[in-house]
């Protein structure tokens, strides 16, 4: 129990420091520049405390439940003994032998993104200002699918050894074409999603997976290849959100065309 108490204190101290810097800036502008009182000040302060405490507790829970299990599995799933059994590595066993690791990469990318608190915040805001036209679950599923695809492709890349920049440059080209054809309203939201997804929940698990894979596949460097996954995980959700909106507007057009 003692370790819990220490962890919670440490975690709360971190989020409190984060919050304090924000409160100082807000207080300065409120008192010196705007010189106005905020309405419902007590309520706002209580809410800020809830944010810090909630985030602190959330992080401790991740540390105790999700991270150790996820990381242990990432190592296990990329372990040659597990993948190839007692016989060891067969000659000619290509990327296909790592199928489970790739499936796991996809699922971990997908599920961690759904639990990402900052993405939840952006999705709630998007729903509010679009008066419900952008559904929070639709947006989050689109982002989660993008991250999942990115992480799975990244895992495949580590195994196959294709240079990172081919994918990144190719990705940016696709992104430009998509941006040109996408409905206007989704573009800022799509690019914001790319920045928001790689956060508290996703990064530690995905990096653990990348390092585990890179350490077990010969010829890969954990330092270089472990981080490539993060770049993928922030590029592909932009594409998937744009794609989601393109499909949506295509269907809407066809409907009105027929009706």
């Amino acid at each position, binding site marked *: 129990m003692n370790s819990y108490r220490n962890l919670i204190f440490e975690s709360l101290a971190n989020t409190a420091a984060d919050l304090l810097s924000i409160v100082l800036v807000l207080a300065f502008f409120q008192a010196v*520049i705007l010189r106005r009182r905020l309405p419902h000040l007590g309520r706002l302060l209580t809410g800020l405390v*809830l944010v810090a405490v909630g985030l602190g507790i959330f992080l401790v829970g*991740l540390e105790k*439940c999700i991270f150790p299990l996820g990381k242990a599995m990432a190592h296990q799933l990329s372990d040659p003994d597990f993948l190839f059994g007692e016989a060891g590595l067969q000659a000619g066993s290509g990327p296909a032998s790592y199928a489970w690791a790739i499936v*796991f990469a996809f699922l971990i990318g997908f599920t961690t993104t759904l639990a990402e608190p900052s993405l939840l915040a952006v999705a709630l805001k998007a729903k509010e200002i679009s008066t419900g036209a952008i559904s929070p679950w639709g947006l989050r599923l689109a982002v989660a699918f993008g991250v999942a695809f990115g992480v799975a492709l990244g895992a495949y890349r580590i195994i196959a050894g294709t240079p990172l920049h081919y994918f990144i440059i190719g990705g940016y080209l696709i992104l430009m074409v998509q941006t040109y054809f996408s409905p206007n309203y989704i573009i*800022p939201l799509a690019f914001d999603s790319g920045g928001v997804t790689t*956060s508290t929940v996703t990064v530690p698990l995905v990096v653990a997976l990348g390092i585990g894979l890179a350490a077990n596949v010969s010829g890969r460097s954990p330092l270089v290849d472990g*981080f490539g996954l993060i770049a993928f995980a922030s590029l592909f959700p932009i594409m998937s959100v744009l794609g989601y909106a393109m499909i949506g507007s295509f269907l809407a057009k066809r409907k009105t065309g027929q009706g």
Partner: protein
Amino acid sequence: MKKTILRKLWHSFVDVAPILAVIIFFQVFIIQKPFPNLLENIMGMFLVVGGLFLFVIGLETALFPLGEKMATQFMDQGSVFWVVLFGFSLGFSTTIAEPALTVIARKAGEIAVQDGAITQAWEADFILGLRLTIAFSVGVAGALGVYRVLRGWSLVKLILAGYALIVAVTIHAPKEIIGIAYDAGGITTSTITVPLITALGVGLATSIRGRNPVVDGFGIIALASLTPILFVMIFGIVVYGARGG
């Protein structure tokens, strides 16, 4: 009241449930080994759900209203300078306090000493310089993002210009700094900053006539993941010198 609380708790559980399902599935069916610390894992799960629940309540009672209220107050006051400075301060101060950034900066400092790029005596200055550079770059993104909302500029053009600049600078940047630079782009926006900045942008776009909050309000976060890449590479060029050829 009781009902909404229960509903929110349920939502938080639904958000976390997929990860649990995947982990349990793999553990039971693929790996076929018992959970190493079952009791601890169950307690951790309660903390995850409870923490997310409190965060969402705080989000709706504090972070969103704060961002919006500040936005309308700034618009009433009518000074572009102060609201742009506010965007800068918010980005700068939250980034300088970010623990993940401190870790990355320290690692980069160690590597720079090992490579012989700087002497041991300069390591502390290098780390501080890197942290200030990244915080400054997020501040610039905040200021630029707010200014863009006020002016109604197209985000796509800004981002394309940003990519072009990044490619141009990457060609000249020393290779020691490139990895750090691209990582810095991913870690800079903290979970508390994102909702506040989003609410600020949307609030500003809502209070200016002729702006569409969906098109003009989002996009500050997107800029905040570009500017650190650019500025850290420039920092690298200043410290290491430009790459020849």
